[in-house]
């Protein structure tokens, strides 16, 4: 029993940590620009593949490869905004479609280059081995990832509440027009937010995937829908909500998986049902403050 509970807690946190990092960026972009960036999951997936290829080409320079890949993804995020999102900002459906097109494009490109076969980037595990705690053994890479995720989330919170850019991001997300009147270049702030969100996704991927594996180019969609679910739960545009929502989703998944009959096959349905219930009872989510648009 104690092992089951440990199992639930650890995997809930693990799941939550990755969801929180991905949804944080996603939610940020939605909050600031009202933009649903469908390519967000693709950034996550692309990071994994770039890491895999990078490691094969430069086997000795893992650390540099990681940094390089994160920079590339951040730049891709910026380009997405400049080339695709910015010209279409006013049409909701347009942005959704074009970023969907981009995600699809990236997926298909990788599919052509490497096929659907899974691959592992196991060789880039920074902390191999396991640690035992209360009779439950935990993979060191995951422990590192959970800690890193917490640190990144706190640093991000600090950044958003204290720095000038962070404050202008908050200003734009609360009232874009007023922020513009203060002399803030809203488009540039949006550019930065999309880049930050891509950066967060890239960090999450480069820390989590070495312990996971690349399960095919379609994996981006899984993470995209999960982060959809998380931000609905937490409240769209709410940063606290996306972190809390991510952990709640993580725990619901691992709880279902371990304690409910037929749990493993329901593990990804129950969170969706929770989302539907939340949507119907409290459409703005747990932490959503804004009125529905």
């Amino acid at each position, binding site marked *: 029993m104690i092992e089951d509970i440990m199992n639930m807690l650890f995997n809930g946190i693990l799941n939550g940590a990755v969801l929180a990092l991905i949804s944080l960026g996603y939610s940020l972009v939605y909050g600031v620009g009202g933009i649903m960036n469908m390519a967000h999951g693709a950034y996550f997936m692309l990071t994994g593949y770039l890491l895999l290829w990078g490691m094969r080409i430069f086997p000795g320079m893992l650390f540099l490869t990681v940094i390089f890949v994160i920079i590339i993804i951040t730049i891709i995020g910026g380009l997405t905004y400049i080339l695709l999102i910015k010209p279409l900002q006013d049409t909701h459906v347009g942005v959704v479609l074009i970023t969907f097109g981009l995600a699809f494009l990236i997926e298909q490109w990788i599919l052509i280059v490497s096929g659907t076969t899974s691959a592992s980037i196991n060789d880039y595990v920074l902390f191999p081995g396991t640690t035992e705690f209360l009779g439950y053994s935990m993979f060191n890479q995951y422990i590192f990832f959970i800690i890193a995720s917490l640190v990144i989330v706190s640093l991000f919170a600090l950044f958003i509440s204290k720095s000038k850019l962070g404050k*202008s991001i*908050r*200003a734009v997300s*609360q009232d874009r027009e007023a922020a513009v*009147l203060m002399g803030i270049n809203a488009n540039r702030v949006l550019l930065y937010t999309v880049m930050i969100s891509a950066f967060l996704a890239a960090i999450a991927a480069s820390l989590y995937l070495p312990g996971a594996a690349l399960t095919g180019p379609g994996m981006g969609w899984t993470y995209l829908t999960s982060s959809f679910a998380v931000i609905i739960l937490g409240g769209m545009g709410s940063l606290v909500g996306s972190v809390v929502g991510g952990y709640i989703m993580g725990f619901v998944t691992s709880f279902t998986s371990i304690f409910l009959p037929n749990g493993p096959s329901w593990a990804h349905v129950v969170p969706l049902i929770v989302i539907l219930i939340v949507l119907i009872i409290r459409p703005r989510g747990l932490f959503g403050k804004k009125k529905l648009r």
Partner: protein
Amino acid sequence: MLEMKKIYHYYGKARALEEINLKIEEKALDVVIGPNGAGKSTLLRVISGLEEPDRGKIEFLGERIDGLKPHKITKKGISHCPERRRLFYDMTVEDNLKMGAYVQKNRSIYNKQLEFIFELFPRLKERRKQRAGTLSGGEQQMLAIARSLLSNPKLLLMDEPSLGLAPKVKKKIFEAIEQIKNEGTTTLLVEQDAVLAMEVGETIHLLEEGKIEMRGTSEELKREPRIKKVYLGI
């Protein structure tokens, strides 16, 4: 200082502004009055760049500013205090003020301006750490004005500062406006409450259905029978 020449603006097919000619002198306090939906707010939005005029020319200090992005116009020294305050409600009063000084890189000017504002609205100084959303309506309006003053503007545009306030508070706000004017900031005020507006305003413009129907000093306009009947209720 600011000159609008033959400005036209449309929302879709509906005409919002028609042949607006407006000239504001340095250190003046101009007021635009008019009924609801006459295009008063649109006028200010066109100046601050939130809406691009469909035709016409706007010059500020001899430079064309129409077509510029609003944040560029703010940098040129026009500050727009928008209708319904539009504060950053989830941020503290202090952060709101900091946002107001976003374009102001000079620390000493910022401090001087801050001092002036706290003198003007001592209440804000007490509530510096409070979230803007928790302020009362009057305080929020004060904050909105203070925020737009912090960029140390050459021209201040104010949209309905008295909206939804109790008469007592209204009066306070208008006193502050006069004080701001006395400090030497050129101001363009849009106001529905014609009585109050005429008290502070030097030049009054009457805007009806997108056109400027009448203009003159407040004394001149007060004598007009139509103004008397419709706007002053005498």
